[in-house]
């Protein structure tokens, strides 16, 4: 007789435990507070080797010497770092909702609108394991395919145990813990994240998504991701999800490091819709303070960042590229929406080091309600970067008259043979445009969506297809009610 769904699932879960995951499944949550002891306890709970603990401690000690930066164009209540708990037990599914009936109807409504299939809705809502069998088995086949290609894709905590040589070699090489306040904090207390390694010449057979990291519990807080693409390889990684995510941990300070060797390409796409806080007061939303950087180390390597940021109370991040290899390419495509009381200070840094390097920046900022959107971009062309080329376009769109859009482009060119192009535009969705659409039979909300989608088209075209479809829907939903 064929095993029942539950039996198959139990078998799979047992396998997980064999691989050593048991150390992650601890029924413990730390009291608030951060000191060396907390760092040690985190490392112990994760079963980390000594060198990892040492690294964390160095980062922590360095963090203690730093002052929180205040130069960004954002306002927020100071974070009390001693009032945060730095390790939470993975939510036991037993404590979660038993069925979708117990889930906040607002959240369900959004899932419906985003067209999320029922089973995925259940996973997102944290419903007990036996209801999500299909997704688990899909994930298993997924991992087999990757193993065949030699691609490693696992939680970083697993990589630290199973592939220490790789982690040691690359961790902190693109974002050293000394880089900035939040990177130091993250390096000390990071909870989990993705580790991806693509061997020489391998084109990763499928798009990697955080969704398939089975161990993705409570990783939002201090996520650490490391992606390594060896010579001639290709990988496309998708982070995030369009469904609105709540988290009792308010501060999300993630670090993402990408390393691309010669002729290798890493495409990193993000769709972020963390809880933005109360639309009137902004209270309770997530602070998304992220350090993301890619090193295009080898000749003709390429790193592309594509992001659609619609959530979080505050988004503060500059996915950047260091174009070290000759002829390397860096790209940044971004749509950032700020509405209600959201604030975004986001952009990119393109640092041209090698010769004949190229960078492209396309940033679309949309402000609505009382949202404040700031683009901050830096293009630095070092003296050895002969024939560097950069194209930057930052466009802002204002919806309504209570919001703001700001642009701070920094351009530092040290090479006389560099070519730079910078374009910027600001537009409003005019009432006249909306009325024109109305007069053609299109209602206002659809008109606004259409116009905003047209505005964001260039960026959406860079997203992997299903992500693009979801991102468009997400933008539509996020803009609901912003045009009075």
């Amino acid at each position, binding site marked *: 007789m064929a095993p029942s769904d539950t039996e198959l699932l139990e078998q799979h879960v047992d396998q997980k435990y064999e691989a050593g995951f048991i150390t992650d499944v601890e029924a413990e949550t730390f009291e608030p507070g951060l000191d060396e002891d907390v760092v040690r306890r985190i490392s112990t709970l994760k079963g980390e080797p000594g060198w990892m603990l040492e690294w964390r401690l160095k980062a922590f000690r360095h963090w203690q010497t730093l002052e929180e930066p205040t130069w960004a164009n954002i306002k927020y209540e100071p974070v009390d770092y001693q009032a945060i708990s730095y390790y939470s037990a993975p939510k036991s599914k037993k404590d979660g909702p038993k069925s979708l009936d117990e889930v906040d109807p607002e959240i369900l409504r959004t899932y419906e609108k985003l067209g999320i299939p029922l089973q995925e809705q259940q996973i997102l809502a944290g419903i007990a394991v036996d209801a999500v069998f299909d997704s688990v088995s899909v994930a298993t086949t997924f991992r087999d395919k990757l193993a065949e290609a030699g691609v490693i894709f696992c939680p970083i905590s697993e990589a630290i145990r199973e592939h220490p040589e790789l982690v040691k070699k690359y961790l902190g090489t693109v974002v050293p813990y000394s880089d900035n306040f939040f990177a130091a904090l993250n390096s000390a207390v990071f909870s989990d994240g993705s580790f991806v390694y693509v061997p020489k010449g391998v084109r990763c057979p499928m798009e990697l998504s955080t969704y398939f990291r089975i161990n993705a519990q409570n990783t939002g807080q201090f996520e650490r991701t490391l992606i390594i693409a060896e010579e001639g390889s290709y990988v496309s990684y998708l982070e995030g999800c369009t469904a609105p995510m709540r988290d009792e941990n308010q501060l999300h300070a993630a670090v993402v490091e990408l390393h691309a060797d010669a002729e290798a390409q890493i495409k990193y796409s993000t769709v972020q819709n963390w809880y933005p806080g109360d639309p009137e007061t902004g209270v309770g939303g997530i602070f998304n303070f992220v350090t993301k950087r890619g090193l295009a180390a080898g000749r003709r390597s390429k790193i592309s960042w594509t992001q659609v940021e619609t959530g979080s109370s505050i988004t503060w991040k500059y996915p950047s590229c260091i174009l070290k290899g000759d002829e390397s390419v860096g790209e940044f495509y971004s749509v950032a929406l700020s509405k209600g009381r959201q604030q975004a200070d986001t952009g990119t840094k393109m640092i041209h080091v090698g010769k004949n390097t190229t960078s492209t920046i396309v940033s679309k900022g949309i402000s609505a309600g009382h949202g404040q959107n700031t683009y901050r971009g830096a293009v630095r062309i070092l003296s050895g970067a002969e024939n560097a080329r950069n194209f930057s376009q930052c466009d802002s769109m204002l919806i309504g008259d209570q919001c703001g859009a700001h642009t701070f482009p920094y351009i530092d060119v040290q090479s006389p043979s560099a070519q730079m192009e910078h374009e910027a535009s600001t*537009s409003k969705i*005019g*009432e*006249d*445009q909306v*009325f*024109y*659409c*109305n*007069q*053609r*039979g*299109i*209602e*206002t909300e*659809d008109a606004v969506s*259409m*116009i905003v*989608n*047209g*505005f*964001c*088209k260039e960026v959406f075209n860079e997203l992997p297809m299903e992500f693009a479809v979801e991102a468009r829907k997400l933008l539509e939903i996020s803009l609901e009610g912003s045009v009075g």
Partner: protein
Amino acid sequence: MSLLEIRNLHAQVEEQEILKGVDLVVNKGEIHAIMGPNGSGKSTLAQVLAGKEEYEVTEGEILYKGRDLLEMAPEERAREGIFMAFQYPVEIPGVSNVYFLKAALNAIRTHRGLEEMDAMDFLVYVREKMKVVKMDEALLNRPVNEGFSGGEKKRNEIFHMSVLDPVLAVLDETDSGLDIDALKIVADGVNSLRSEERAFLVITHYQRLLNYIVPDVVHVLIDGRIVRTGGKDLALELEDKGYAWLEEPLGAAETVSA
């Protein structure tokens, strides 16, 4: 039942009264011309029919297909078959002409209980319509009106009209800024849509357009009121004499039947 009945319409914008008691009846199959000097309220009338918020109706009523038009939102009026060719068509960057029209047509079709057209069918349908206004296919994929010349914008309006198949088409000074050739193309487009099931309100400052789009009825709007109604010869009379001869006996509006 008349298609459109306007009774004692008073409308203001920015606290200033522009329409001061307009009466008008339009039936299916008819072409009405509305002429008048600058500031007479011609465009205001068009905007009120289209439903622009800034134009406040202070008195009177408008019945469209027997329904209270003023109760209907602009997009509902459009879906019920009212089309306005704008005097100053706006640009919509990032949204292609063809995508925009497909969205509009499908919104109207859905309202009428018809199935939406998919991209393929729509393209076939639209290509036919393009011939009518001698529209260059290249303009299909450009963002709506972006970078279009004045003439191209006006022709695009007529193109939209032919695609959306309205019941009542209001042309707000469609001829302004057009040279003779463009004018002829626009007029051909309008004439090709004449039908027993459709009515046109052609708002124009100059008589010239009416050589090509021959009206059934001509109304003269002066200072917010229709002071004279006549046949197509009234337009010629105006060309000859100007508006001044009608501006004197205000308040004593004579109506000469067509």
